[in-house]
C-alpha cells in the first residue's frame, strides 16, 4: 500500500517536472534563487513527526518535521531533498521548482522489528514474538571465510555456545543451546531443519576410520553457508514445543536463499586466502630439553645412559634443533572459494540458482585437500489470483576430503627438539639408523571421504477461503557417505621388512535417506481489535539408513590397497540397517489483541518408533505470552524515550528421542566368538520394553526494550530448563544378567541462566553508519537429583548439586620440598592417596559466561565489520597432554622450572626418566588432579571484514565490492598452551584465516 502511494506521488511529480524544466532552462537567474519548500511527511496513513529533511550535498542545511509532520526549509529549485527517518527507507526527492512537496515515506522492511522471523511452521514479526529466537542472516555470514555453518554462529547468539573441535577441514563443532540437558553424551544434539526438512545430525563416520579427528566429524559440513539466507535458533518452550519430542535441546532453523522479483541478476564471488594455526605451545629448545634429560638421569641415579636413549647418549646430534610444530603443523592452508548465482523473476515467479566451489588445503605437510561443491536452486511461484503458492528448493553438496590418517599435533608437541632430520641426503625419509619413527611416514596412511548430500523441499499452499490456507510441505534428503583409512606397510621403517601382506584398509559406506510430509491448515481472522491465527498440522517422517563397514587385510602390493577384492582377508565389521519413523500432530493458536497483548499456545502429539509399544506417543505443549507495554497509554505519556517495551514469558514441555533405534527390542547380536565354527549369538542387552521420552520443561521470562526510536535495543532473558526422566543405564545387580538397564531414571538436570543482548545504532546518517551488537550469556548447569547415584556406575562422574560437566580430581597440594614429589590431599585420611576416595575435588568445564561484541561501520561505500568473542572457562592445560617430564618426550618451556634439590620449591616435581616409581605414580595422579586444569578463558577477534563497494561510476552495468576478511585473527588468553578452544586435548587448534575477494553483481 505504501509503495503505491509513493509511486503515485512520483507520477504527479513527473508531469509537472517537464514543465518546470523548460521554465528553469530559460531562466538561469531563477535557478540561483532560493525558494521556500514545505509540506507534510507521512507514511500514507499518518503523519510522521521527527523526520529529518536535508538538502543533498548540503547536510548542514535541514530541518525536522514537527508534531503534525509539517516541514519547511529554504532550497534552490534544482536541489534534491533527502528525507530520512529510522524505520523507513531514505527518500531522495528532486524539488524541481515546486514549493509544496508532500513526502510519503515507505517502511524500511529491514527494520529489525518488522522483520518476519522464521519460527518453523509459521513466521512472526520480531516485535510480536512471544518465544526466544536468536537470528543471524546472510549479512553476518558473508563476512566469514568458513565452511561449516556452525562456525558462522560462534559468538553471535546469546545462549548458544559453539566450540570448534579441530582445525582439520571436515571436522566438527559442538553446539550447546542453553546448556547440556541429557546425562548421555549423545543425547544433546539440537534439531536441525533446512527449509522445513529435518536434517539428521548423527555422525556418519566410524570412529576407527576418522582417527584424525576427535568426535568423528560433522554431517553439517554438507550445508553450504553461502546458500543460507538466515539461521534462527529456537530456545525456549514457546518456540520449541511445536517441535515436540525433538525440541528439548533447541531447534536450529536454516533457510536458504530465495529468488527475488526483478531484473535477472548475475552474481559472482571469488576469493582466495590463507590459513595457519592460531596458537601453538611454547616448547623447550634443544638446550633446555637436554638439560632436563640430563637432570632426570642424575635424579634417577643413572650414570651409564642406556643405549636406547638416543637423544642424550650421543646417537643424535645434540646441537640440532627443529621446531617440530612449525614442521608438522606450521604449514599454510590455501583457501579458494568461487560462487556464482543467477536470480530473477517477475511478480508471479522468481528463481535462484547458485553454484559454489570451495577448497582448502591443510597446514600439515604433504598434499592434502578438502573440496566442496554445492548447488542450490529455488523457485517461487504465485498464481495470478494469488491463491496458490509454490516454493521449491533443492540443494546438493558434494564433499571430497583427503587428509592424513592422523593429526600431527601431538607428535609435534612431543618430539625431542634434537630429533633427526626428516630427509636424508638422497631426499628419502631419514630413519637415522632405526633410532626413531620418522613422523612423515604417517603421510603414507590416508583418510579419504566422499559425501554426496541432497536436500529438497517443496511447499505448496492454497488459499481455500479468505481466511483459510491449506498447505503442505514435502521434503526429501539423500546422503551417501563413503570413507576409508589405509594402514599401508610403508608407514613402517623399511628396515623392519614389513611387507604389504600386513597392509590393511577400513572402508565405511553409510547411506541415509528420509522423506517428510507435513500438511497444514492455517486460519486467520480478525475479530474487532484482536487477531486470531490458528495453525493445525501433521508430520509424517521416515528415515532409513544402512551402514557397511569392512576391513581388508593382506595385499600383494600397496598400490592395490583400495581394491578390496585384492585383500587376502576380509572381515565385515558392521552391516546394519535401521529404520526410524516419526509421526505427529501439532497446533498453534495465536491471539493478538491490538498488537499489545499477545498469547501463543502450541502443542504437539508425537509418536516415535524408537520407543516400545505402548510408550510411543506423548504430548508436549507450551504457552507463551507477550505484553508490549510501550503501547500502553501511561507508558507513552510518561516514558516517551521508550520506543519499544515488551515483557514476555513462556512455559512448556519438549522431549528428547535421541536414543538410537530398536533399543526396546529383545535382540541377539553376534558375539564375535566361534564355537565349532559357528559364530555365537548373545543377547544384546537387558530387554526393557518400557522406556519412554526424556522430558524437558522450559520456563522463560524476558524483557525487550528499545529506546530512542529503537536506536538502543536491550533485551534481558532468564530461563530455567529442567530435564527429567533421563534415559540412563540404571545400575542393577548382576543377578539380572547385566549390570545396567537402559531405562528412565528420575534424575533431573537443570539449566538456568541469563541472556543479555544490546544493540545500538550509534550513528545513523546517510554518510556514516555505526551499529554495535553485544550478547552475553551466563549459564548454570546443575544435577538436581539422581537417586541411587552412589551405587551406580556414575558415582565417580557426577555429584548432585554440581554441574554435569565436571571432573572429579585429586587435589594437588604442591610438592614435598624435601623429596621433590607432588603431594595430594588425603581426603579420607587413610594415609594413602587412592582412587576414588581421594579423587574428590571438583572442576567444572562449562563456561561461566560467554558472548560476543560485534561492530558494523559503513562510510561512503566502505564497510567494516568486526566481532570479538569472549569465553570464561576452565580447561585442561598443557600438563595434561605432556608426557612424563624427564622421559624421552619434549615438554612445554614451563616445565623447565622443576624441583632441583632438597629444600627447593617449584611448581613442578623432580624429573625422572621413568624408573622412579614414586615420581611416575605422582605424575599419573598429577594429570588427574586439579593442577591439570587451569583458566582457559579467552577473547578472540573472531571475525573482521573490510569491504569497499565498487563505485557506480567505474563500470555502469556492474555493481560489486572488493573485500578482505579474517577469521580467528587475534587471541588474548592467559592460557599456557596451544589454543584454549577444544573439547579433546591434543588435536589441531582452529585456524586463523585471511581471505581477499571480489563480488560482482550484474
Amino acid at each position: 500500500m505504501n509503495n503505491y502511494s509513493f509511486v503515485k506521488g512520483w507520477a504527479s511529480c513527473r508531469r509537472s517536472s517537464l514543465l518546470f524544466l523548460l521554465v528553469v532552462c530559460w531562466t538561469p537567474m531563477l535557478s540561483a534563487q532560493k525558494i521556500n519548500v514545505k509540506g507534510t511527511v507521512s507514511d500514507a496513513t499518518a503523519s510522521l513527526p521527527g523526520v529529518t529533511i536535508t538538502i543533498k550535498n548540503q547536510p548542514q542545511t535541514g530541518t525536522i518535521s514537527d508534531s503534525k509532520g509539517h516541514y519547511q526549509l529554504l532550497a534552490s529549485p534544482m536541489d534534491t531533498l533527502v528525507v530520512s527517518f529510522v524505520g523507513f527507507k531514505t527518500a531522495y526527492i528532486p524539488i524541481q521548482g515546486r514549493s509544496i512537496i508532500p513526502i510519503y515515506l515507505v517502511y524500511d522492511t529491514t527494520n529489525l522489528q518488522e522483520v518476519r522471523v522464521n519460527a518453523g511452521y509459521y513466521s512472526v514479526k520480531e516485535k510480536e514474538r512471544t518465544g526466544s529466537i536468536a537470528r543471524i542472516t546472510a549479512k553476518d555470514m558473508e563476512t566469514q571465510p568458513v565452511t561449516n555453518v556452525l562456525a558462522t554462529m560462534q559468538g553471535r547468539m546469546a545462549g548458544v555456545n559453539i566450540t570448534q573441535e579441530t582445525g582439520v577441514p571436515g571436522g566438527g563443532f559442538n553446539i550447546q543451546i542453553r546448556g547440556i540437558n541429557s546425562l548421555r553424551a549423545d543425547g544433546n544434539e539440537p534439531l536441525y531443519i533446512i527449509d522445513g526438512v529435518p536434517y539428521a545430525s548423527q555422525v556418519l563416520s566410524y570412529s576407527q576410520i576418522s582417527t584424525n579427528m576427535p568426535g568423528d566429524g560433522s554431517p553439517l559440513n554438507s550445508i553450504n553457508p553461502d546458500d543460507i539466507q538466515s539461521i534462527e535458533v529456537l530456545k525456549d518452550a514457546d518456540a520449541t514445543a511445536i517441535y515436540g519430542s525433538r525440541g528439548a535441546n533447541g531447534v536450529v532453523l536454516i533457510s536458504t536463499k530465495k529468488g527475488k522479483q526483478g531484473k535477472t541478476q548475475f552474481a559472482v564471488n571469488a576469493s582466495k586466502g590463507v590459513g595457519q594455526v592460531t596458537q601453538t605451545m611454547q616448547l623447550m629448545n634443544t638446550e633446555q630439553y637436554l638439560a632436563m634429560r640430563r637432570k632426570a638421569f642424575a635424579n634417577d641415579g643413572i650414570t651409564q645412559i642406556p643405549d636406547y636413549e638416543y637423544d642424550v647418549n650421543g646417537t643424535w646430534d645434540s646441537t640440532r634443533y627443529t621446531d617440530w610444530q612449525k614442521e608438522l603443523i606450521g604449514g599454510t592452508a590455501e583457501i579458494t572459494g568461487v560462487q556464482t548465482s543467477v536470480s530473477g523473476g517477475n511478480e508471479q515467479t522468481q528463481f535462484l540458482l547458485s553454484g559454489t566451489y570451495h577448497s582448502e588445503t591443510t597446514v600439515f605437510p604433504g598434499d592434502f585437500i578438502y573440496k566442496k561443491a554445492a548447488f542450490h536452486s529455488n523457485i517461487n511461484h504465485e498464481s495470478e489470483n494469488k491463491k496458490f503458492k509454490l516454493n521449491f528448493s533443492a540443494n546438493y553438496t558434494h564433499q571430497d576430503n583427503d587428509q592424513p590418517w592422523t593429526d600431527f599435533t601431538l607428535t609435534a608437541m612431543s618430539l625431542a627438539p634434537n630429533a633427526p632430520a626428516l630427509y636424508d641426503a638422497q631426499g628419502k625419509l631419514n630413519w637415522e639408523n632405526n633410532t626413531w619413527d620418522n613422523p612423515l611416514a604417517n603421510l603414507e596412511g590416508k583418510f579419504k571421504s566422499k559425501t554426496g548430500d541432497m536436500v529438497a523441499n517443496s511447499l505448496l499452499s492454497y488459499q481455500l477461503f479468505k481466511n483459510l490456507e491449506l498447505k503442505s510441505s514435502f521434503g526429501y534428503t539423500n546422503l551417501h557417505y563413503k570413507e576409508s583409512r589405509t594402514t599401508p606397510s610403508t608407514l613402517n621403517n623399511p628396515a623392519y621388512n614389513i611387507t604389504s601382506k600386513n597392509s590393511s584398509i577400513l572402508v565405511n559406506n553409510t547411506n541415509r535417506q528420509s522423506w517428510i510430509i507435513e500438511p497444514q491448515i492455517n486460519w486467520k481472522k480478525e475479530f474487532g481489535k484482536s487477531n486470531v491465527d490458528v495453525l493445525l498440522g501433521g508430520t509424517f517422517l521416515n528415515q532409513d539408513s544402512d551402514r557397511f563397514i569392512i576391513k581388508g587385510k593382506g595385499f600383494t602390493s600397496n598400490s592395490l590397497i583400495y581394491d578390496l577384492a585384492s585383500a587376502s582377508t576380509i572381515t565385515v565389521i558392521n552391516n546394519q540397517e535401521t529404520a526410524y519413523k516419526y509421526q505427529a500432530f501439532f497446533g498453534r493458536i495465536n491471539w493478538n489483541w491490538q498488537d499489545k497483548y499477545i498469547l501463543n499456545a502450541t502443542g504437539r502429539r508425537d509418536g516415535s518408533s524408537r520407543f516400545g509399544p505402548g510408550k510411543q506417543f506423548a504430548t508436549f505443549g507450551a504457552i507463551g505470552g507477550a505484553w508490549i507495554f510501550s503501547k500502553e497509554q501511561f507508558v507513552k505519556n510518561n516514558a516517551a524515550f521508550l520506543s519499544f517495551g515488551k515483557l514476555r514469558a513462556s512455559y512448556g514441555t519438549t522431549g528428547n528421542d535421541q536414543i538410537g533405534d530398536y533399543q526396546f527390542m529383545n535382540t541377539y547380536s553376534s558375539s564375535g566368538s566361534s564355537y565349532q565354527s559357528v559364530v555365537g549369538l548373545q543377547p544384546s542387552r537387558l530387554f526393557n520394553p518400557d522406556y519412554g521420552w526424556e522430558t524437558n520443561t522450559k520456563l522463560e521470562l524476558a524483557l525487550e526494550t528499545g529506546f530512542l526510536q529503537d536506536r538502543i535495543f536491550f533485551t534481558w532473558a532468564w530461563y530455567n530448563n529442567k530435564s527429567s526422566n533421563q534415559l540412563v543405564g540404571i545400575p542393577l545387580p548382576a543377578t539380572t544378567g547385566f549390570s545396567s538397564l537402559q531405562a528412565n531414571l528420575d534424575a533431573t538436570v537443570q539449566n538456568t541462566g541469563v541472556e543479555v543482548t544490546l544493540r545500538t545504532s550509534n550513528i545513523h546518517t546517510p554518510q556514516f553508519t555505526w551499529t554495535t551488537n553485544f550478547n552475553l550469556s551466563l549459564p548454570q548447569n546443575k544435577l538436581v537429583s539422581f537417586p541411587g547415584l552412589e551405587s551406580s556406575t556414575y558415582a565417580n562422574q557426577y555429584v548432585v548439586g554440581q554441574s554435569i560437566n565436571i571432573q572429579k580430581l585429586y587435589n594437588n597440594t604442591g610438592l614435598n620440598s624435601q623429596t621433590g614429589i607432588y603431594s595430594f590431599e588425603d581426603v579420607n585420611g587413610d594415609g594413602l592417596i587412592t582412587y576414588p576416595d581421594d579423587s574428590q575435588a571438583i572442576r567444572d568445564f562449562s563456561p561461566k559466561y560467554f558472548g560476543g561484541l560485534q561492530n558494523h561501520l559503513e562510510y561512503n561505500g566502505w564497510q567494516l565489520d568486526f566481532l570479538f568473542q569472549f569465553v570464561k572457562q576452565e580447561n585442561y592445560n598443557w600438563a595434561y597432554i605432556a608426557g612424563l617430564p624427564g622421559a624421552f618426550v619434549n615438554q612445554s618451556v614451563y616445565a623447565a622450572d622443576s624441583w632441583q634439590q632438597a629444600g627447593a620449591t617449584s611448581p613442578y616435581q623432580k624429573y625422572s626418566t621413568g624408573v622412579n616409581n614414586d615420581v611416575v605414580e605422582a605424575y599419573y595422579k598429577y594429570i588427574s588432579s586439579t593442577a591439570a586444569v587451569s583458566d582457559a578463558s579467552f577473547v578472540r577477534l573472531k571475525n573482521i571484514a573490510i569491504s569497499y563497494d565498487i563505485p557506480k561510476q567505474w563500470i555502469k552495468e556492474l555493481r560489486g565490492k572488493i573485500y578482505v576478511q579474517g577469521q580467528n585473527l587475534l587471541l588474548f588468553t592467559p592460557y599456557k598452551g596451544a589454543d584454549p578452544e577444544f573439547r579433546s586435548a591434543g588435536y589441531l587448534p582452529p585456524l586463523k584465516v585471511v581471505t581477499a575477494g571480489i563480488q560482482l553483481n550484474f
Partner: protein
Amino acid sequence: MKTNNPIVRLHLFTNRFYNKKWILLLILLSCFLNSCDSFVEVGLPNSQLTSPAVFEDKATATAAMVDIYNKIRDNGLLTGTSSGISNQLGNYTDELVCYGSTASVSIDFYNNALVATNSNISAMWNSSYNQIYCANSVLEGVKNAVALPTADRDQLSGEALFVRGLLHFYLTNLFGDLPYITSTDYKQNSNPKRMPQTEVYDKIKTDLTQAIALLPEAYISTEKVRPNKYAAIALLARVDLYSENWAEAAANATQVINNTTLYQWTSLNKVFLKNSTTTIWQLMPAVKGKNTFEGETFIFTAGPPTLTALSPGLLSAFTAGDLRKSWWTKAVTNGTTTWYHAYKYNQYQNTTTSLEYSIVLRLAEQYLIRAEAKAHLNDVIGAAQDLNAVRNQAGLGATTATTTEELLEAILKERRLEFFTEFGHRFFDLKRTNKLDSTLSVVKLGWDAKDQLWPIPATELLVNSNLQPQNYGY
C-alpha cells in the same frame, strides 16, 4: 440475505457447506486424521535378530546356545585363564604357590586375603549370572518357538538346563546361600533373596534331571564339546555326592561308567588330549589351532615361575611310582632351584590343529564318586574296587584301606592327586568333608574359618539389599 425464518436460515447455513471447497476440505481432513498410529511401528531390522527370530531357526538357536560355551570357556568361573577357579582355587588351597607380584590378583587368593571388593570375584559373579541369563534366554526362546522341531527343542532346552545347573552348583559351593535365577525378567531378578543351600541343591537336581530326560545319549556334535545325557548324569552324580545322597550318586555314576562304548580308560598321557576316551564333556577353543587356557596359565619354561608353581605339599603327596607325577607334572629348573608345574595340558601355544580341549567332566571322577558313595553305604569292597581302578591307571597298586574311614581318607587323597588344578576340586572336597580348617590352617598362614566361603561382591550388596547378610567375617 437476512431472514428470521429458522428453516430458511438452516438451509442457508447448510448451503454454505455444499460449497465444493468445503467438501474438499472435509475429505482432506478425514484422510489426514485417519492416519494410523501404526505408522510409527517399524519392522524388524534386517541386521539384528529379535529373540523370536533367533529361535525359529535351528542354526541361529544353536548359535545362541553355543555362545554360552564361548562365555564359559573365556570368562567367569570355569575359564582356564588365571582368573578362573582352576588357578585361583589352586592358589587358595594347598595346590599352588603363587609367584605373581603384589599387584597380581592371584596373590590375594594365595594369601587367603579376599575382600568384598575383590575384582576377580566380582568378575566371576557377574560373568556367571550373565551366562545364566543367556541360558534362561535360550530356555524361554525355545519354549516359544513353534517352528523348531521337537528334537532340536529338547536338545537345546536340555543343554540350557544343564548349564544353569552347572553354574549355580559352582556358585553355591563358593558363596553359600544365593538366589536361583530361572527367568530373564529383570524385575524378578533385581532383588532376589538368598536361598538356603539345600533348596539350591534341590533346584539344581531338578534342572539336571530334566536335562537328562531331554538330552540324547549320542553327542549332538563331534568331539564331545556339547553335553549329552551322560554329561548331565555325571554332573548329577557329583551333586548327589556333595549333598550326601549316596545311593543316587552311585547309581548315576554307574550309568556313566557302564557305557563303555562312549567312555573307556586310556593311558595317562592321553587323558587330556582332545580325543581322549575318558572325556565326558569338554570345551572347544574359539579358533582352529588354539589349545587350552590352562596350558597357557600353568606352563612355564624357565624359572622362576611367572605366576604359579605346584606346591611342595602336593608334590610330596605323590607316592613313588605314581605315573601322574611323571606325566601330569613337569620340572623346570634354573640350575639352583627346581619348580614343578601342572602338565596335564601340554600345549601352551597354538598348533596347526588344536590338540587339547579343556575337559570339564571326565570318567575318573565318576569312579571316585562311586567309590566314595559305596564307602558311605558300607560297600567297602565295591568302594575299593572303584578306587583301585583309578589307582591302576596311575600305575599304583591296590589300596591298603579296608574300613570306611580309611577308604574315605584314601579317596580324598586320591582325589587330591587326580584332580589338582582342575576346577577347584580340592577346595570343594575339603569343604564338603569339613576338613578345610584342619588341613589348610597348617599350611596356609592366612587361613581362617571364614575362608570357607567367598564374600559376595560389595557392589551387589549395594544394589540389592536382599542379598544381606554378607558371609560371615567379611
